[in-house]
């Protein structure tokens, strides 16, 4: 079949990109490898989603349900239980090869949206020594067991890393009757949102140990204990540490955009975001017609902004632009998305998503065009876990730089 847009991934980013393209009249296909649409939201049974987009606090499945209902209303074709095995260029568009229980299939599309989400950094990627017994799980895998399969993977849990999924799982495991001994974070500041520390840890008296990490795992078939040690400023363990008995180690140490398909298309990833570099419509800077949306582009902390970016991409898929790209300089920032701006575009309002490298009480983001300061935003309580989203209105220029400065 021939499509205007094929969306790979049926999570919040893919669903919204598909709807917004279909509303512009494109023939759209969503390809999802799982049996159901909804992506990671399916297992996020806690609430707090949609406050910005809908003005209500929804659970993950409720948020997904709204977009899925819209996909059905628009009559968008969906292939679930279907895995993309190949993408290649053809006649100015792309051929997407898939496999499913129905067999193999090949479709042509003018444009592609990569909405493949992200993967968890694994326990093995954080250099924990010792044996490899059962009971060592990434936080999202633990969430899948508890919230979708109805299984409790342990009764006495230690959580390594203070990422949001780890905090959310500390509460979930407690509600399911497990004892959560503590959350251990090697850095001096938490990786997760402050409000999650309050409502997931403090509410249940679960201690958060900063500048402390797990250095060894003990146990033959099953985890029996871990060793936790204080770390110095260069994250090296100091002293002998302490043995903590447990039957579950949950590791919540970060997410990495999933970009296998982007690599198949020969696209480079931005080392700062680990997603591909895009313009303000989320179209790849390196390849016309390829979009990346949601956590495949950069890891978000709020799904509302995933949907926003995906809507931008989906609507743009119906357009033809003759692009003239200018690289966006980022100073004093961990990263900026988009990495490029199409300056031939007449729309002056552009949305930038960025992260600060460290906590700042008062800061300002300054936008320089052709070396001249054209816009500035004051910010309070800037923290790396909280993505900054700033809209600037400015005319086309030959050089664009965003600079984050701490203020007294």
């Amino acid at each position, binding site marked *: 079949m021939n499509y205007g847009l094929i969306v790979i991934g049926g999570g919040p980013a893919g669903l919204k990109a598909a709807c917004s393209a279909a509303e512009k009249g494109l023939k759209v296909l969503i390809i999802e490898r799982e*049996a159901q649409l909804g992506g990671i939201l399916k297992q996020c049974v806690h609430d707090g989603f949609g406050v910005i987009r809908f003005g209500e606090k929804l*659970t993950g499945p409720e948020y997904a349900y709204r977009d899925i209902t819209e996909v059905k209303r628009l009559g968008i074709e969906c292939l679930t239980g279907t895995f993309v095995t190949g993408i290649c260029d053809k006649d100015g568009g792309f051929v997407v090869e898939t496999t499913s229980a129905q067999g193999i299939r090949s479709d042509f599309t003018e444009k592609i949206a990569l909405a493949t989400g992200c993967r968890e950094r694994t326990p093995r990627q954080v250099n924990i020594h010792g044996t490899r017994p059962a009971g060592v799980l990434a936080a999202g895998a633990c969430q899948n067991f508890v919230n979708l*399969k109805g299984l409790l993977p342990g009764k006495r849990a230690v959580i390594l890393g203070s990422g949001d999924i780890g905090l959310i799982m500390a509460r979930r495991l407690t*509600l399911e*009757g497990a004892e959560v001994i503590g959350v251990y974070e090697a850095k001096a500041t938490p990786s997760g949102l402050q409000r999650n520390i*309050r409502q997931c840890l403090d509410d249940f008296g679960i201690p958060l140990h900063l500048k402390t990490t797990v250095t060894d795992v003990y146990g033959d078939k099953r985890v029996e204990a871990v060793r936790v040690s204080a770390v110095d400023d260069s994250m090296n363990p100091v002293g002998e540490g302490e043995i903590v008995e447990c039957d579950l180690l949950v590791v919540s140490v970060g997410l990495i955009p999933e970009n296998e398909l982007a690599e198949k298309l020969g696209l480079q990833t931005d080392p700062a975001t680990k997603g591909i570099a895009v313009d303000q419509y989320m179209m790849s800077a390196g390849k016309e017609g390829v979009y990346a949306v949601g956590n495949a582009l950069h890891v978000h902390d709020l799904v509302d902004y995933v949907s926003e970016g995906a809507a931008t991409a989906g609507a743009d898929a119906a357009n033809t632009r003759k692009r003239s790209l200018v690289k966006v300089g980022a100073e004093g920032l961990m990263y900026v998305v988009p990495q490029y701006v199409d300056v031939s575009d007449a729309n002056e309002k552009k949305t930038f998503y960025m992260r600060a490298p460290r906590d700042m009480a008062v800061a300002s983001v300054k936008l320089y065009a052709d070396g001249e300061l054209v816009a500035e935003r004051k910010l309070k309580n800037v923290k790396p876990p909280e993505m900054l989203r700033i809209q600037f209105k400015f005319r086309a220029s030959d050089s664009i730089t965003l600079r984050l400065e701490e203020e007294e």
Partner: protein
Amino acid sequence: MSEVKLTCIVCPNGCELVAEKCGDGSVKVAGNLCPKGVKFATDELVRPLRTFTGTAATAFPDFPVIAVKTDREVPKEEILRIAEYVNSLCLTKRCSPGDVIVKDVLGLGADLVVTADMN
């Protein structure tokens, strides 16, 4: 009474609040970007409220458990008791988001509703 530091959990702003209970029983709040912060801080000092979210078992093999929540906030100290009660349930009817499965759960004035789609 002394000042209490709170983080508002109502929305993603996550305002850092300073709240103080006055002699007349009212609560003075600073640091909030919107009126919801005042209500949150007042509730926190007087009677903290939370929404329960979790899962309930079902009789269907394709959904061993299904996401549920209370349709409004309930006293924070009841959350563990609700969790224990919800873990004793088993749904025998397929549900969609918003379907009420338990009315007035534990007499707390909130209904237990399904938040995921089994249909």
